[in-house]
């Protein structure tokens, strides 16, 4: 999955912030602890006219998720 790579400062600027009514950012770390966020085409249309337009200029890269925590156990 392709996402937008963020610096820690950029992540802290947007994490949990609402960019539209009832919609908020959620950033996640990849397997190398790099922060990412993901935007749908609809999100991009919203952001292009917002204070978060800068997000669309962030570099994009393939997201490799970290290994999930052990719970729930494999039965």
């Amino acid at each position: 999955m392709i996402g937008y790579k963020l610096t820690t400062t950029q992540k802290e600027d947007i994490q949990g912030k609402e960019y539209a009514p009832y919609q908020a950012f959620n950033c996640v770390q990849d397997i190398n602890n790099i922060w990412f966020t993901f935007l749908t085409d609809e999100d991009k249309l919203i952001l292009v006219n917002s204070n978060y337009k800068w997000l669309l200029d962030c570099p994009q890269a393939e997201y490799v998720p970290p290994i999930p925590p052990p719970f729930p156990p494999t039965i």
Partner: protein
Amino acid sequence: MSIRIGIGLDVFSGPGIDADAVAFFARVTAAGGTLSATEITAINKLVKDMKAAGIWTSMKAVYPMVGASAAACAQNLISSSFTGTFFGGWTFASSGVTPNGTNAYMDTNLNVLLNISITSAHLSYYSRTNSASNWDMGVTQGTSTVMGLILKRSTGLSEVDMFSDISEAFSTETDSRGFYLGTRTSNINLKFFKNLTLKATSVVPDTGNLYNGNLYVGAVNGNIQYGNKECALASIGNGLTNTNATDLYTTVQAFQTTLSRQI
């Protein structure tokens, strides 16, 4: 008296329109959402059918996922409490809402410790996607404080946990499309339904605890893991009997059929 819905329809209160349905329409409109005439009809029938079946009062939150927008889908059918917020990447469509499986969840703002009984609780999720993922709904702080649904894992299993992993109910799963319901009606009685079928039962005495945090749809709160299945309705509430479970499936399936999105 009439209420003007976003698309310009007038919905009249009276014998044909349930007052709780009208209140939901008003919440959607106030949030900036709109509903189609078919969605209005389907919601009104869902409310009336749930009341007729005697299961309305068992519900704390029902998210019918209509309106194809975050504003509409965040609204709780039951009351103005527990309005959701969508985080991360979601797709909103007339068929439901789909989390991207990577960073998407809906925070229901329903705190489990404050609103759920450890001996009477249920979760449900109407899935329109056949795929494997981890948690599709719930909260967890580990094996002794968990409440959640996994519709199909990569191991080919599905499960409900309430409130300890020791007393979970699980079964094999090949197709994660359908209406899933996990319900606990006592500390030793946990059942897991898919549509009209009882998939699994646990009678292991539960020793779990209630999580002091909000329940998520599309992921699990706590050690966060994400689901990827299109959701066409989710509910949270008190424990449901076998008859209640059948009635809930029947009413929800009729609702989905009215919207031409049934599985």
